[in-house]
């Protein structure tokens, strides 16, 4: 079953008087439950694709469908709803709110999504898998980089999104923590069937994915 279906996607930014063609006709299909790594040099369009799939920016042309929902037809409110319910982000810099505890960072994602009931039991398994159950009452500054990234993963998963978008999730981690985080992502993918799209420069990180897609100059080259 297709989770993501991208056809003829273009994105052009206007910087001053100059048009910058960040994506020049991207076609990509990702099946539900796939773990796909997107690699490519800087300026190849990886981050732009990430932003469009995450509903952070609208496409210029083409169609982008996530779980049957066409992103090209969404306005700002629609893209906000998409981020709230269908997409979970994992960033290179973790991007946890510094004033909240790890638990607070997870809960606020639920609050934004309008969820008020108790967390479901399966999420306890996820916390166990992530190994942060005893670190939830600490603020980000008291957590190591690896722990912070695992909290960010828990936050991304708490609303059970259709798609997890990970942007260089190991970019700020040492080898040991990188391996741990990537192993967790792969486990989540295998155990929960969670669809994951991961942007990375690192071939070793890409090796954890089921499939690698390479981008160059705004196009998918293989």
């Amino acid at each position, binding site marked *: 079953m297709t989770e993501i279906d991208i056809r003829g996607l273009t994105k052009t930014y206007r910087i001053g008087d100059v048009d910058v063609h960040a994506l020049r006709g991207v076609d990509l299909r990702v099946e539900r439950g796939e773990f796909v790594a997107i690699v490519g040099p800087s300026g190849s369009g990886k981050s732009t694709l990430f932003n469009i799939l995450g509903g*952070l920016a609208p496409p210029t042309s083409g169609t982008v469908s996530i779980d049957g929902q066409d992103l090209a037809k969404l306005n700002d409110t629609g893209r906000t709803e998409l981020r709230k319910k269908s997409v979970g*982000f994992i960033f290179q810099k973790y*991007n946890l709110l510094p004033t909240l505890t790890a638990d*607070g960072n997870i809960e*606020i994602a639920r*609050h934004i999504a309008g969820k*008020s009931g108790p967390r479901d039991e399966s999420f306890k398994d996820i916390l166990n898998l992530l190994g942060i159950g005893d670190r939830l009452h600490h603020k980000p500054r008291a957590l190591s980089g690896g722990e912070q990234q695992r909290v960010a993963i828990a936050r991304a998963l708490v609303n059970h999104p259709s798609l997890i978008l990970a942007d260089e999730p190991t970019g700020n981690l040492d080898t040991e923590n990188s391996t741990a985080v990537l192993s967790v992502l792969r486990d989540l993918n295998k155990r929960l069937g969670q669809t994951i799209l991961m942007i990375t420069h690192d071939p070793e990180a890409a090796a954890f994915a089921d499939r690698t897609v390479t981008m160059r100059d705004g196009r998918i080259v293989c």
Partner: protein
Amino acid sequence: MAARLKGLIHRLVFENLKHRPLRTLLSLVLIGAQVTMILALVGVSRGVLGNMQRRAKGTGADIIIRPPDSSVLSFSSNMSEKIVEVVRGMEHVKLATGALVHPISNLDSITGIHLDEFNELSGGLVILKGKGFEKPDDLLVDRVFAQRKKLEPGSKLDFGHLWNIVGVVEEGKLSATFADIAALQDIFGETGKISYVYVKLDDPKNTDAMKATLQQKFDTYKIYSMEEFTALFTTNAVPLVETFIQVVVGIGAFVGFLVVFLSMYMAVLERTREIGILKAMGASPGYIVGILLRETVLLALAGTALGIAMAYGTRALLAAVAPNMPQVIVPDWYLNVAIIALGGSLAGAVYPGLKAAKQDAIEALAYD
């Protein structure tokens, strides 16, 4: 769980304020200062007018006669003291005595009295130190005035004239300074002139009837019952005080607006990345504005509480350095100052809030 999640937002708001302690403290102090400024002004206005009320009541008179064209706070109009004799001869008048008020500065004046008559009228000035006046240059002062000017019996005081302080009396009766009326008239060239006639009746029940009789006899003069006279000592009855309070309230609201505008503008700049994170999680513009507004409300309410506490400080300070300007605590203004602080603060949060709501999530996430 719903309550827990709601508590989470309150915690986020509280933690955000706690995370920048200096900025939060400065905002609180500045919002508090505008609240204190308003409370102190209203409190001093009421305190000073309340003192004047107490002093007027302390005379023990039932009716007060003032010259034509006089106003409640003006001492510039005087009348002939012959009127006292006419009043004394009227039915139901137990006692009538004249007083001359000679202004020295904006807030200070000397009151000339017939000491024996005034003692009979008021129940007597209570002399705490020294004695009553005997010579033309003798001056009695009340305890607050003596404390303010550091005076003791035997001190000299250059107060429009060089006076000998002969005694210190308990405050609360007519004036803070007393001289012999004949001496005062002579010294300041107001022979035969008085500012007030204080009338005590055989029975206070006759006040209304006597007031009507007096008004008929002295039709151009201002005749007040004591109740009417003291009711005039309100901020509403003094146009300049009311206007001044309104100006200070306006300044206070504007200061609150500026403080919160700057504080929240800085907060939005400092928290650009955090706003980006919230947006990435699907927070709507309203959700983000809601967090900022909650912070603003918390700042305004905490600032108001601090301002109220600081108003007790200004009261203590004024009592120590300017006892002639007593500040009363005005709880009936607490709601007003809270509304002023809240209104100014919320107005100040509008632009930063809109800026946060419009922030581009991608740019915000890239912000370092």
